[in-house]
């Protein structure tokens, strides 16, 4: 593998159009190829960290989840069979590890309700001031609707992939997405996004 000067170069190279597919990498890793694991790691590292942060709202906890997630992935080899999109496989692992990370941190009550309350607190504002309203409205959405919106439009997952990742029926995915978009469409803070 060619030496890279920076991690960014590595991440870019591993996502290039001519890079091996996830299935090819997994087949190689099943054969003991550590270089293939590295490619897979850099391909999904940032997504896993971002998703973990979405759940935990804590960067240290997100890094812990990143490590735990890839240790979990590693232990699947040899013999791992990818039956769906790799993000679909990773999503429930990241979510569950995030819940566990929050409990470990002991900053909040160790309960699902506390976790959901944490989910509903407004996210830190992004780099663009105009996104504050959108962030606040997203935080006000029910957790399950917010997650579907983000998986669909930020992570680029198809409806079927979301259904598989969240382990809910496709109809439920559509219903949650519809309701979330309806809320955004009708709210005056985000109505402008829907105007032509």
């Amino acid at each position, binding site marked *: 593998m060619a030496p890279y000067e920076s991690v960014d170069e590595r991440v870019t190279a591993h996502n290039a159009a001519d890079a091996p597919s996830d299935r090819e990498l997994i087949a190689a890793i099943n054969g*003991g190829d550590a270089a293939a*694991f590295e490619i897979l790691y850099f391909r999904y590292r940032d997504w896993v960290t971002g998703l973990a942060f979405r759940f935990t709202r804590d960067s240290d906890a997100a890094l812990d989840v990143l490590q735990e997630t890839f240790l979990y992935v590693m232990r699947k080899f040899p013999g791992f069979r990818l039956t769906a999109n790799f993000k679909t496989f990773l999503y429930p692992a990241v979510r569950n590890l995030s819940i566990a990370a929050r409990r470990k941190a002991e900053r909040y009550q160790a309960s699902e309700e506390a976790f959901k309350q944490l989910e509903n607190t407004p996210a830190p504002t992004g780099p663009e001031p105009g996104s504050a309203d959108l962030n606040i409205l997203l935080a006000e959405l029910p957790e399950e609707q917010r997650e579907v919106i*983000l998986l669909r439009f930020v992570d680029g997952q198809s409806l079927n992939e979301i259904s598989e990742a969240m382990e809910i029926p496709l109809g439920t995915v559509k219903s949650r997405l519809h309701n979330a978009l309806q809320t955004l469409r009708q709210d005056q803070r*985000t109505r402008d996004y829907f105007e032509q």
Partner: protein
Amino acid sequence: MQVPEDDRDGAKEALEAPPKLVDALKRSRTAPIFIPPTVDKAILHAARRHLSQPKPARFKWSLLLRWGAAVAALVALLAIVPMALRKGGSSLVRSDLNREGHVDILDAFALARELKTGGHPSPQSDINRDGVVDDRDVAALAAKAVSLGKGGRS
């Protein structure tokens, strides 16, 4: 609930977000979290160690099944064949008194002649196994020879 055909486009549109919203959603996410290189190194080092471990020898059930089947077949062969030989052999030996290799009426005549001349037929001539070699054995042998001649049909 089935969406009417003329409303299917509307239903699909209800699940799409305008490009402006999609861009805003992507931008609204916080800036990427800084991942220290030490975290990358730790994970990749653990992966290299795990993947370089020799694979544990997997017990091959198929091999056990094959060997088991072979042993079972051998045991069956060793048990059944001698039994078959003894049964068939004993019957042939008992009945084939003139040692021609087959049982026919001549064997009955040979026994009858031996009894008439006061010979001492061997215990194998006790065809009906009543402990005595006599005319009843001659009759049994004759009957057997006839039934064998008819192909064993009664």
